[in-house]
């Protein structure tokens, strides 16, 4: 066997010019393009879920236990037109934004201290492992004693629910910034806050964004739960209180409408606000596919 020894002639070929090919790039069909729109796919899923709800509720036929989707929608519409639901949602969102932004500010301070000093790192790690598993609601009784019956207590528990999730994610994001990028930043002579702001924060943005999302969800749940427990501050409670009141009056479609509002706001924030931030930042920069 000496196949390698067999002489072979050299081959030289002329490639066919690309103008003679049938298809080099072909646009996708309309159906394929529609199926590529995420919002449409998600809407389709929502419609199917609503249909299942409607059919099951009609079959159950017990509006006190489980009202139909259409009656929930009607209660929701009445609430919107009457303005009560909007006003309640407004109260909730206002408190929520106060707590959320205060929580993010605290997280920012804590992480910057953690990234610049070793004691800070230890402090952040200790505090996070201590307080992150502690449900914010468990602090509510204490908060009521400290800050009284009002927005102060709510903001306090909200800060607690946001702070640890955001701080933990931001810190782990900072730690995972590639060494090359760090060296590049220092090569430019950046130090201190400019270094954090111009290099670390954008480079860690995927993790920071995850932290912000988790923080938002935690804050929302904590707020609604806290409002269910107490909730009236100066006569007008938020959505949680709306749900609680209507339960007491056995206005079950209104209870569902309240829950529905919580869900709708959650969907909007996730799919409009965070989605757009994501598209404009981490997706555009190719840091997330």
């Amino acid at each position, binding site marked *: 066997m000496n196949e390698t020894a067999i002489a072979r002639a050299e081959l030289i070929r002329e490639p066919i010019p690309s103008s003679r090919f049938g298809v080099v790039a072909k646009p996708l069909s309309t159906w394929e393009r529609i199926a590529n729109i995420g919002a449409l796919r998600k809407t389709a899923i929502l419609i199917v879920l609503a249909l299942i709800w409607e059919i099951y509720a009609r079959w159950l036929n017990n509006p006190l236990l489980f009202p139909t989707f259409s009656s929930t929608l009607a209660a929701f519409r009445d609430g919107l037109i009457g303005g009560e639901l909007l006003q309640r949602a407004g109260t909730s969102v206002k408190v929520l934004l106060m707590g959320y932004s205060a929580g993010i500010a605290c997280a920012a301070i804590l992480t910057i201290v953690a990234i610049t000093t070793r004691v800070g790192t230890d402090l952040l790690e200790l505090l996070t492992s201590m307080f992150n598993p502690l449900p914010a609601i468990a602090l509510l009784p204490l908060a009521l004693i400290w800050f009284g019956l009002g927005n102060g207590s709510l903001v306090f528990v909200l800060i607690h629910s946001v702070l640890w999730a955001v701080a933990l994610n931001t810190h782990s994001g900072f730690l995972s910034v*590639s060494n*090359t*990028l760090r*060296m*590049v930043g*220092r*090569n*430019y*002579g*950046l130090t201190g806050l*400019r270094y954090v702001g*111009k*290099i670390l924060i*954008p*480079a860690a*943005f995927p993790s920071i964004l995850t932290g912000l999302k988790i923080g938002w969800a935690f804050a929302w749940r904590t707020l609604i739960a806290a409002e269910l427990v107490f909730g009236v501050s100066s006569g007008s409670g938020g959505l949680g209180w709306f749900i609680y009141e209507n339960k007491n009056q056995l206005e079950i479609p209104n209870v569902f409408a309240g829950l529905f509002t919580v869900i709708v706001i959650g969907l909007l924030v996730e799919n409009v606000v965070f989605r757009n931030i994501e598209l404009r*930042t981490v997706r*555009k*920069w*190719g*840091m997330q596919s």
Partner: protein
Amino acid sequence: MAAIDGSAAPLLDVRGVTLQYKTKDHLVTATYRIDFQVRRSDRFILLGPSGCGKSTLLKAVGGYMSPVEGEIRLKGDIIKKPGPDRMMVFQEFDQLLPWKTVRENVLFPLLASGRLSGSAAERKAMETIALVNLSQFADSLPHTLSGGMKQRVAIARGMAMEPDVLLMDEPFAALDALTRRKMQDELLALWNATQFTVLFVTHSIPEAIKIGSRILLLSPHPGQVKAELNSLAPDAPAAELDLLEKRIHSMLFADAVEETVPHE
């Protein structure tokens, strides 16, 4: 030659530099009492096998670590910390800021260091981008570029700053062979245009001969100076280039000859 050597003060002066770094359970000596001087417009190559501390040495010149013994002076001043007078080009493709376009990436250090501002910075950035033939891609984000293009942006970013010395840490090592050759030619063309000073780390002997004007050979574990040679012009006869390559090869692998007998 001797007259020039005597009169010109070195731009970068490395004297008796010993570098050590700590791993989890060892204190490693990366280089031991290294001496070399880089003059203006040198294409100075640090060449050696892996483990000879050439990248560590470059990091020390960059100011990322300080020597335990000896000193590194740039224009007479001891190097203490990283700074924009010593721009680095890294091997990794992720050295560009992914949230900035090509133009912004080149522009950012100019603005951040306060070297230029406003339209002057803008003009300088676009000029350098044109030098590396990327004008068309000025508004592209790094993740849409190929590896070679990213390295060209990194080089443009370094050159736009007009640093005292451009530090290059195996910038072409992660490229494929064809792109690598093209990039070497481009780097030489850029040098012919502006005569910048460059300190270049590589482990490839042909690359060192092609790019360098002067080559520092280092031996491994720990890194020590083995020789400092003059390279040949890129258009020198092939036989001479070949001879130099063989000479460097035998110098670098003199100790290892007994262990690894070639198979040919």
